[in-house]
C-alpha cells in the first residue's frame, strides 16, 4: 500500500531517528522515520530532510508529536507542518493531540494539497474515527505493549488492531509488541496493512546508540518494561531501571510533577543513549524487547521478517481444520 517493498515502518524515536538511520530503513525496503523534535530551527529541520534525501531515493516519513513540551512549542509544530508541505515529504506520523485541534484545519488542508500522507498514532477507536473524519490517510493503532506513550485505553494490539480495522475505511498499521516476522504475519492477519516498530530498530547495526543499549535489549525480556506516569496523566512505558523505580516510588507517595520532571528530562535520555547507561534516564522501549535476540542490519532484519511471516503463515495454514 505504501509503494515500498516491505510493509514495515519505523516509529518515532527521539534522538535516534535521524537521517542516517531513517535512510537505512528506507533503503532496506521499509519506511524510515525522521523525528522532527530533534530539530529546533526551521533551517536544521529542512537540512535534515535534505540530508536524508541524499542518503536515499526511497520514501520516508517525518514524525511530529503534537504534545506540549518544555523545548518544543506549538510554534515548532506549525513550522514542522509548513516545512513538510514545502518539501513534499512522503508522509507524516502524527501523535498526541489531533492535528486539527493542535494546528487548525488549515494545517490538514496544507498537507493534503502538498500530497503529504497523514497518519495519526492512536490508542483508542474514537481517536481513529476522528482522524478519518478530518481526512487522514491512515491510522497507526498502538497497543498497550508499545514503548513510549501508549495513549490507549490500555487495550492490547491483538484486540485494538481488528477493532479499529473493522471500524474505519482507511488503512491501519499495527504498533506495539512486534519485533519479527511472526508479529508481522499476526498483524496482517488481524487486518493491518503493515506494522510499525521502534524498539526492534534500536538493536540494528545502523542505529546510532551506545552498544551497551543494544546488548541490554537482547538481555532483557518482555516482563522488563514498566508503565509509569499515570499519576501525571501521561503514561509511558520504559525499560525497568533505577530511574524508573525512583519515578514509581515518587508516584506511589503522590509526589507531584515538580519532583518528577528532573528525572524525566529529554536531555538525560540523550545522554543515556550516548553513554549506554540504562539506569540514567527512562528508555522508552516496549514489551517486544523480549523478542530481540541479535543486532542485524536493517536489510537483514526486514528480509528475514518478510520470509518468516510467509513461512509461518504457510506452515500453519493446515492447522485450522479446513
Amino acid at each position: 500500500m505504501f509503494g515500498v517493498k516491505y510493509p514495515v515502518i519505523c516509529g518515532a524515536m527521539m534522538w535516534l531517528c535521524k537521517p542516517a538511520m531513517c535512510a537505512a530503513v528506507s533503503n532496506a525496503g521499509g519506511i524510515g522515520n525522521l523525528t522532527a523534535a530533534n530539530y529546533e530551527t526551521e533551517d536544521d529541520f529542512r537540512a535534515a530532510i535534505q540530508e536524508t534525501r541524499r542518503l536515499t531515493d526511497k520514501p520516508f516519513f517525518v514524525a511530529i508529536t503534537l504534545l506540549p513540551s518544555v523545548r518544543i512549542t506549538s510554534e515548532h509544530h506549525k513550522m514542522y507542518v509548513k516545512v513538510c508541505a514545502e518539501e513534499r515529504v512522503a508522509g507524516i506520523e502524527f501523535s498526541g493531540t489531533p492535528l486539527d485541534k493542535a494546528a487548525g484545519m488549515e494545517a490538514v488542508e496544507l498537507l493534503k494539497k502538498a500530497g503529504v500522507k497523514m497518519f495519526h498514532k492512536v490508542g483508542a477507536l474514537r481517536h481513529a474515527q476522528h482522524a478519518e473524519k478530518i481526512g487522514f490517510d491512515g491510522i497507526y493503532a498502538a497497543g498497550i505493549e508499545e514503548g513510549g506513550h501508549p495513549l490507549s485505553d490500555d487495550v492490547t494490539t491483538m484486540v485494538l488492531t481488528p477493532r479499529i480495522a473493522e471500524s474505519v475505511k482507511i488503512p491501519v498499521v499495527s504498533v506495539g509488541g512486534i519485533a519479527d516476522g511472526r508479529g508481522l504475519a499476526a498483524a496482517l492477519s488481524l487486518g493491518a496493512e503493515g506494522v510499525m516498530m521502534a524498539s526492534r530498530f534500536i538493536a540494528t547495526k545502523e542505529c546510532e546508540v551506545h552498544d551497551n543499549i543494544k546488548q541490554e535489549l537482547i538481555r532483557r525480556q518482555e516482563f522488563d518494561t514498566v508503565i509509569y506516569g499515570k499519576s501525571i496523566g501521561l503514561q509511558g512505558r520504559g525499560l525497568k531501571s533505577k530511574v524508573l523505580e525512583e519515578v514509581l516510588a515518587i508516584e506511589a507517595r503522590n509526589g507531584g510533577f515538580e519532583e518528577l520532571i528532573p528525572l524525566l528530562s529529554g536531555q538525560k535520555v540523550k545522554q543515556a543513549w550516548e553513554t549506554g547507561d540504562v539506569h540514567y534516564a527512562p528508555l522508552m522501549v516496549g514489551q517486544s524487547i523480549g523478542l530481540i535476540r541479535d543486532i542485524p542490519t536493517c536489510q537483514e532484519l526486514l528480509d528475514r521478517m518478510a520470509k518468516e511471516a510467509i513461512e509461518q503463515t504457510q506452515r500453519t495454514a493446515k492447522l485450522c481444520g479446513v
Partner: protein
Amino acid sequence: MVGIKYPFILSGMSWISVPKMVAAVANAGGLGILATGPMNAAQTREAIREIRSMTDKPFGANASLMFPGAAENAKVLLEEKVPVINFALGKGDWIVKEAHKYGGKVFATVVNVKHAKRAQDFGTDAVIATGQEAAAHGEEVTSLVLIPHLAENLKIPVIAAGGFADGRGIAAALALGAEGIAMGTRLMTTKESPLHDNFKKLTLEKDVYDTLFSKRFDGILCRVMKTDAAQKAIKKGLNWPAAFFNSQDIAKQLNLPYIKLFLGVLASGYSNSKQLAYLANAFKAIRVATENGDFKEGVLPVGQVQGLIHDIPTVAELFERIAKETKAAQAKVNAALD
C-alpha cells in the same frame, strides 16, 4: 494431539463451562473444558458422566489448584480418566504422573516462560498461555509478545488464550507459533452458553476498553467487565464480613462442614486467608452475574476481546465461520508479502 477437528478450546469458566456447554463444544469439533471450581467431588463425578452421556468426543476438565477442594476434584478427574486435564494456579506434577498412566493429556495454564518451563519439565503435554488481555487472570505481558516467546522456548505446544474471538485472531495466534487457541469470552456469548441473557446482551454493547484490570476484585490481577457493580467492588477492595458469609455458601456448595473449611483456611496463614476471603466474595459476585444476570451485585470476568463480539451464534456456526475467516486472513498475509 487430542483428536479434535478444530484447534479451539473452551476455557474452563465457573458456571459457564458446565456439562451441556462442554458437550456442545465437543460436538461442534472443539475441546470443552469443564469448570470444576464450584463443584465438590461427587458433583464433579456426576458432571463428567453427564458429559459422556451427551458426546462421545474428547473433552477436558480443569483444576484450579488454589481453590479449596480442587485436589479432591482432580482425583475424581483421574479416576474417571478424563481425556484432558487443565490445571492452573498451582503445581500439577502429580496430576501429570497419574493422567499419563491412562493416556490422558495434561495442559497447564501459565502467564510466563518460567512457569511454562517448569510445567514442561515435569511432563505437562501443552501450556495454555494467558495474555494480559484475557478475562480474569492474565499478567502484564500481552498475547502478541507472550505467545512467540513461549513457542520458541518450549518443546511442547502452546495454546494461546486472551484476545481471541474470530479468524483474524486465530490466524495471528498460529502465525505467532501457537498450535491452538482457547476462548472464554467469545464462547460464553453463544446460544448454548448458560451465561444469563442480561450479560450476553451487555457483552455485545461493551467495547474493547470496557474492562477493569485490578488486584482488588479477587486478590490477584483479574480482568472483569466494567460495570457499576465491578467498579464498586474494586473501589471497596476486600470485604471481610461478606467473605465470612460467602465462605459459608462455599462450604455448603462443596459439602464441607463450615468449621472445617474455616479452620483450614485460618491454619493456612494470614495472606492465604486473605486470598481465600477475596475468592469467596468473587465467587459470589461471578455466580450471581452468570446465573441470575444480576447487574447490581454481579461481576463478570471478560476479556478485552468482548469489543470484537457482535453476535450470538451457535457454537457450530461460530467454529465454521472462524475456520473460514482464518483461511481468508492467511491468504491476506500471503498476498501482502508476495
